[in-house]
């Protein structure tokens, strides 16, 4: 999509009613499936969550003290000498989600594994994300997933089918908007700028940008739209005229005729 057609999209988007994004909610509102978490399951979840938080906090405090003591004694201290209790908590959340499998009671346990367990077991977290999208997309109890959606492809790879299920079925406007953002920003980054898939995804992002009232989502959307406008696959990148680390001027276009790997890097 060139700048001219991008501008046309903006005009078109401004003419689309803001309620368009909420269209799928009409369908999910008619979903008669029960979405109530039992009191027993809720109590179990809250107790496990408190146990996890207390346990991780105690572990962190103790590890810091051990590391400090080792430093003071001039000894080395590796993280593996005092392993995290996270795997144990993950097993408990997993056991609960298995016990409640297929019911709304499983949702908070699965969502916790996705949002807090991914750093320990990415495959399990991905499987739980897929289960939530395939079995529980109409649940009103999935808003915690929003925290992983900005980086969901970095974590789990291509999960656009799951994101589409959330976009189509979730009763939560917030979740539908973030799932749309995650899915379609991935598409505009991966598909050629002159493809139908790119055009359709860009159109949805522009519509979302016009409609959303989410002030955390809006800057992210605008950044993705800027990238899609100038750096989509197949677009000619702007030249860079700058100086190297010795202060000598050079340009990106000096490398015309070559494949160029531009690495934005630092010594962190």
């Amino acid at each position, binding site marked *: 999509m060139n700048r001219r057609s991008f501008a046309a999209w903006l005009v078109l988007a401004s003419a689309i009613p803001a309620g368009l994004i909420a269209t799928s909610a009409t369908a999910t509102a008619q979903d008669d499936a029960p979405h109530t978490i039992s009191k027993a399951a809720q109590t179990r979840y809250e107790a496990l969550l408190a146990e996890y938080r207390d346990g991780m906090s105690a572990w962190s405090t103790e590890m810091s003290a051990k590391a400090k003591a080792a430093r003071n004694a001039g000894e080395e201290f590796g993280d593996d000498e005092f392993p995290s209790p996270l795997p144990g908590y993950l097993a408990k959340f997993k056991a609960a989600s298995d016990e409640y499998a297929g019911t709304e009671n499983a949702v908070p346990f699965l969502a916790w594994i996705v949002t807090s367990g991914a750093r320990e077991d990415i495959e399990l977290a991905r499987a739980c994300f897929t289960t939530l999208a395939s079995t529980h997309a109409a649940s009103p109890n999935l808003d915690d997933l929003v925290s992983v959606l900005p980086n969901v492809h970095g974590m789990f790879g291509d999960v656009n089918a799951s994101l589409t299920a959330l976009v189509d079925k979730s009763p939560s406007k917030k979740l539908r908007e973030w799932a749309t953002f995650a899915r379609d920003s991935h598409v505009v980054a991966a598909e050629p700028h002159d493809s139908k898939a790119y055009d359709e995804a860009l159109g949805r992002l522009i519509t979302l940008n016009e409609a959303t009232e989410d002030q955390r989502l809006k800057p992210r959307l605008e950044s993705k739209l800027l990238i899609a406008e100038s750096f989509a696959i197949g*677009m*000619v990148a702007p*030249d860079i005229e700058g100086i190297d*680390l010795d202060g000598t001027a050079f340009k990106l276009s000096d490398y015309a005729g070559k*494949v160029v790997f*531009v*690495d*934005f*890097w*630092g010594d962190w």
Partner: protein
Amino acid sequence: MKDKPFSLVGVNSDKVDVAKDAIARNNLNWRSFQNSVEGRPAISDDWTVEGWPTIVVLDAERRVRYRGHDGYAATDVAKRLVEEMATD
């Protein structure tokens, strides 16, 4: 990729002495732009870089072929482009 139509160009966000130290320490051999030079917009702003490191792979006509944070995926794209140039 030596002797191939390929170049690696950096855009570095560090102070110059920090960058030079990293280059010496890690035996890096590619040329880098200074990202921020007084009086000019940062290159990373012009290129809407959302996170570091970011990699952009350009073909011989400076068209974007990859943009993201996955060094392995970027390398695969670059290798494929170089191979395509060799067979053209």
